[in-house]
């Protein structure tokens, strides 16, 4: 129990601690990667909301055309150890002749197409590059290509001249959870550039700023991505007329020119965001399942479109309230009555510690679920549990706590020591 005269001090400490927790949360959310353990909560909160409760708004399938180039591969000579092209080193690349044919088709319907995202890295030169370059030039600003950034900071740009943005994310143990909006403090990543181009978003950032500004609103550096589009959304329809997300092999679209009329061919592209990539070889581990790279990019773009990267005042207030509750619990030594049967399972210190942690874990889990269900934002929460336990341990060593807990003993001890 806290002595009345210390109450205001403890309230002050609680508020300070809640603010500190909020600052930690925002710092962790700003990191370009996240802790793998968070994947469990992210996965199950998403599944509960999307699959079980069916709160799962989807983008319009008729607004996007996913084009799969996994069946359109060619082999070129690679570079040997001496730095020369050698037929003994073969590299598999996307067939650029066929890609040129597809780009010709895109040029034919240039005015119908909304935007083209080509998630194919043109890292090596090939004999068909000049042909592809002509088609790429014709698409102009409607096209966006990709570049890669590796661990050592080497930036691999496309050998074809085209507008491009970095298509790289950071991850712990290869598990995709977040997409940074910028890398190396100067390189805008692809979802952000897409958002700027397609939605006319205004992005501002200066070195030293804690947050980015998008359309005048503060934004996290690397939001946790909400998987609005997953493998299960790509399905074969049974009711004619309803639109479904589909993966179109590039060969099928090219071949369709032979038997489809002009109106049907136009329907492929009309008002579409054309997303070209590999649906077989470019797979990434996510909390749900393995997803193709271009679906990750599309989900990251959708996260920006729905504003789930922004720092909303209500969300911050909610987090603060949740953290204040946890702080109040610790600093006012509020003991939650645990079921007797649970406490009696074992007398060991370890088990008692586990039981004492259970209620904090429950509150943190409720906070993360509510944050996602109400504000559509995932947060890093499990790491806070470790922080809380350290704070609790230290608090129980402080004079303010000891004075309230055992006033007589504290007084005696105090007298002796003084």
């Amino acid at each position, binding site marked *: 129990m806290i002595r009345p005269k210390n109450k205001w001090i403890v309230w002050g400490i609680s508020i300070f601690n809640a603010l500190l927790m909020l600052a930690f949360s925002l710092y962790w959310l700003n990191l370009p990667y996240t802790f793998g353990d968070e994947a469990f909560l992210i*996965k199950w909160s998403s*599944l*509960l909301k*999307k*699959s*079980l409760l069916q709160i799962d708004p989807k983008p319009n*399938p*008729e607004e996007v*055309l996913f084009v799969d180039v996994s*069946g359109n*591969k060619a*082999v070129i000579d690679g570079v040997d150890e001496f730095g020369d092209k050698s037929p003994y080193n073969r590299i*598999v690349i996307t067939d650029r002749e066929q890609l040129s044919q597809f780009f010709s088709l895109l040029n034919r319907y240039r005015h119908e197409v909304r935007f083209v995202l080509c998630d194919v890295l043109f890292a090596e030169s090939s004999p068909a590059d000049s042909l592809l370059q002509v088609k790429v030039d014709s698409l102009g600003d409607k096209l966006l290509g990709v570049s890669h950034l590796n661990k050592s900071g080497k930036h691999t740009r496309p050998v074809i001249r085209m507008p491009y943005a970095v298509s790289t994310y950071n991850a712990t143990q290869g598990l995709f959870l977040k997409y940074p909006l910028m890398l190396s403090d100067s390189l805008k990543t692809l979802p952000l550039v897409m958002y700027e181009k397609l939605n006319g978003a205004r992005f501002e950032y200066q070195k030293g700023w804690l947050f980015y500004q998008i359309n005048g609103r503060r934004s996290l550096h690397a939001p946790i991505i909400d998987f609005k589009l*997953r493998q*299960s*959304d790509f*399905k*074969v*329809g*049974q*009711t*004619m*007329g*309803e*639109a*479904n*997300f*589909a993966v179109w092999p590039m*060969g*099928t679209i090219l071949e*369709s020119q032979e*038997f*489809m*009329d002009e*109106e*049907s*061919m136009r*329907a*492929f*592209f*009309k008002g*579409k965001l054309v997303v070209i990539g590999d649906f077989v070889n470019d797979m990434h581990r996510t909390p*749900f399942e393995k997803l193709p790279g271009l679906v990750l990019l599309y989900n990251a773009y959708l996260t920006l479109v729905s504003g789930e990267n922004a720092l909303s005042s209500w969300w911050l207030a909610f987090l603060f309230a949740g953290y204040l509750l946890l702080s109040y619990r610790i600093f006012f030594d509020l003991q939650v009555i645990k079921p007797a049967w649970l406490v009696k399972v074992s007398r060991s210190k370890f088990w008692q510690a586990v039981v004492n942690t259970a209620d904090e874990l429950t509150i943190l889990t409720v906070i993360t679920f509510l944050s996602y269900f109400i504000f559509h934002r995932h947060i890093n929460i499990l790491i806070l549990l470790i922080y809380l336990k350290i704070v609790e341990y230290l608090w129980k060593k402080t004079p303010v706590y000891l004075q309230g807990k055992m006033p007589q003993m504290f007084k005696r001890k105090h007298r002796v020591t003084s």
Partner: protein
Amino acid sequence: MRNALFLFVLLVSCLPAISQSYFVVSVKDSVMVDGRLLQKRDKIESDAKIHFSSKEAFAYVMSPGKGYYILSPKKMKSRVAREFVLSLKEALLPPDDFYATSVRTFSEEEGFSFPTVYEMQAFFRGKVLLVGEAAFKLPPDAFVLDEAHYFSFELELSDGVIIKRGPVKDGNLIVSDSLRYIGGHVLDPAVIKSVRLLYRDQTTGVAQQIGVFQLVCPDRQLVADELQQLYQSQSNARPHSFLHDHAMPYLQTCYGNAHPLVIAGIIEEMGNQ
């Protein structure tokens, strides 16, 4: 068909306001549209009346801009509703797979294998030499093989196409002379313009093309004689390296891609003689 169950589906009721066209990707059994038999690449208008010859019959169609559809008298299960249950099942019973910690390489004892689909695609293109039954080890985990998923060879003749199922035994795709047997007759390779190897998914109707190649079927004895001459002309040839150093490059140039084990068999027969 006497016992054919004719099912009738009127699509007018589920029509959108704007007329939409559908193109047939594949058909199972007989599906009739406005009195005509549905074929691949046919166009169906959204007000078409469709008859299915059996409960199992379906038409797999695509609509540009809208997606793929399966038109069937049977209702198929939705994957979305099962997502939560499947995740729960995976959490309780995580999937268990085998992973090899070494790379397989070719040796005459272990057969001829394709580590990935790309090697398979590279083999089944251009010219392919067939001089006996050849077993090709399929890339691991690349193909599901059951009743609904299988390989098929489409032999393109000047007057039509013959489709033959590609037999798979112990994870090996078997390519043999039976590919050319039609109704008790053997097709002359010259009649076969090209062969298309496809991996089919009967449930969705999707066919993944592995490769298109020309089948080269010379007499086995003729190939053996040529290899005999080649061996004699190469005075420095070591018997154990003859296959890879001389025979395979020679056959590759003259006839096309060949199965090393089949050629090794011919060389062994040469040695016995």
